[in-house]
């Protein structure tokens, strides 16, 4: 059975409601350190909401979310920001790189905003793992779609987060690229020993990640 120390995320009795809408109920579940999980469900089933709740982008009023032995509800706003910056990495369907900055400066933002020292050798290491060493000084606008997505992955894993949340990373991609991106994600998560949670309705990923949580 699982020991307490190894539990990375534990969700129990969690509900959430947007203003004027019906309340969403989430199943209880827990995720072990280093595990890869798939969060499945149709559009509107609350995948993104659950991801944002676990990542501290939204705050729950009922139930509990314990991440790395910390109940998120007990953290102040600023403490939650810092907690998120230092322990969690996000990958979204769109890359959301900062266009005004070069690739290198985009990556430097991650440790800077998390309040961690900027480690240039770590940036070089992550970029070379993703085959992007040559793009260090490039402008974001010079990157191809695929390259931009890899930079976004690099940014998410740069601080070696305990948890990597990915929201629909593959749904807009063809089969070949879908396959490539999910493997990149899983490899990057393994490299930085991060727990990986992928929220998706993309059925193609079912065969890639065995642990699954189904939302109604």
């Amino acid at each position, binding site marked *: 059975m699982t020991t307490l120390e190894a539990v990375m995320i534990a969700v129990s009795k969690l509900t959430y409601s947007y203003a004027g809408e019906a309340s969403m109920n989430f199943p209880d579940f827990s995720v072990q350190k280093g595990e890869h999980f798939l969060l499945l469900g149709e559009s509107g089933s609350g995948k993104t909401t659950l991801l944002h709740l676990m990542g501290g982008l939204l705050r729950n009023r009922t139930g509990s979310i314990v991440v790395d032995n910390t109940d998120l509800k007990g953290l102040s706003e600023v403490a939650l920001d810092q907690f998120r910056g230092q322990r969690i990495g996000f990958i979204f369907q769109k890359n959301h790189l900062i266009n*005004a900055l070069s690739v290198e400066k985009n990556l430097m933002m991650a440790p800077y*905003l998390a309040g961690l020292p900027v480690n240039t050798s770590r940036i070089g290491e992550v970029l070379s793992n993703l085959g992007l060493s040559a793009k260090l000084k490039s402008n974001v606008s010079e990157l191809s779609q695929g390259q931009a997505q890899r930079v976004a992955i690099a940014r998410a894993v740069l601080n070696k987060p305990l948890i990597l949340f990915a929201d629909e990373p593959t749904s807009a991609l063809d089969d070949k690229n879908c396959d490539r991106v999910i493997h990149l994600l899983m490899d990057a998560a393994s490299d930085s020993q991060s727990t990986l949670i992928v929220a998706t309705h993309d059925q193609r990923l079912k065969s890639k990640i065995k642990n699954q949580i189904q939302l109604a």
Partner: protein
Amino acid sequence: MSLLILVWNYLKARPLNTAINIILLSLGISVITILLLVNGQLTKKITENVRGIDLVVGAKGSPLQLILCNIFHIDFPTGNIRLSEAEKISRNRLVKKAIPLALGDSYRTYRIIGTTKDYADLYKAELSQGDWWKNNLEVTIGANVHEIANLQLGDEFVSSHGLTLEGHAHNEHRYVVKSVLKKSNTVLDNIILTNVESIWEMHEEGNESIADHATVLPSDSSYIPSRLVPSVAANDSVKEITSLLIQYRSPLGAVQLPRFVNSQSSLQAASPAFETARLFSMLGVGAEILMGFAYVLIAISALSIFIALYNSLKERRYDMAIMRSMGAPRSKLLITILLEGGILTFLGSIIGLMVGHGVLIILSATMVEMNKAGISGMVFFWQEWIILGGSLLLGLLCAILPAVQAYRTDISEVLAGN
């Protein structure tokens, strides 16, 4: 990495927008700077030139012209007054000191003034070379005359009538430079000093008999030398001067003396303090219009900066949300926007101040008139700090609303894509 680098890159990413905001503001700031510098230096200079002169007495005409001519030496004389009448004024018990001025000639537009040493003492003038003028046709020249008109110690020159280069040349007599004044930033820098007799000698060239008469001193006991020009008799009925500069013995002089002078049919008294105040209020209208124009420019630039920041919020809502997801607290987004407004107005005001000084440096280097007026671009006023501080404040003010908007951004909503 820092917020400063981030903001700088945001500004660089929209070069045209950034440039127009900075240019608009710097235009307004440079106009204000130029007005500040010119006004400040003129006021200082005018008060320095007026210092110690309570009243100017001259021929009837415009009182302002009397002041412009006899104190600032930039206008023509109103006419001449008889030495004997000036003598009467100078004997008034309310007069502490009376200095005669005889004008009329110039050398290369620099006015030659026949007067006494008292006139130079009024400005506490000191010599940089040579000795004070003593005899007829000896002159002491101002620092600018030495430098710009290139007159050296011992040089001889011929004066011309009036203040222009085209005036009739007095070829028969030559002045000789005996000394050069130290630069004092007063009118003395731009004039040539000699005794009153020299001016008379110049203009009596056609009438030798009078000149002879003047040099022969009567020896009878009724002869009383003039207080103003001791070489002639106090009751001389022929000699004329242009004006008399007067210092009061007591404040009572300000009340009685102008009335006493103006009651004499041929004389007029003008107060430098009053006339320069009148001059300032006339020039002030032009300066105020320019100032108003500058404020309009600054207001437009403030509006433009506000709009730019507000629009950028829409473009950057994903940037801001992603920054929050990477751990940035709300306050960092607030500071980013404030910093952007502050940097724009800081650059605008620094460039505006530099342009303002630069324009005056170029003008004073290329225009002799500016140089003669003693206006320089290398002078700094403490009010420039107010301009700088005010601009920064303006930038923060423009940024407050967008910054608060950024502060309130709901990251989850933005990232979820609705």
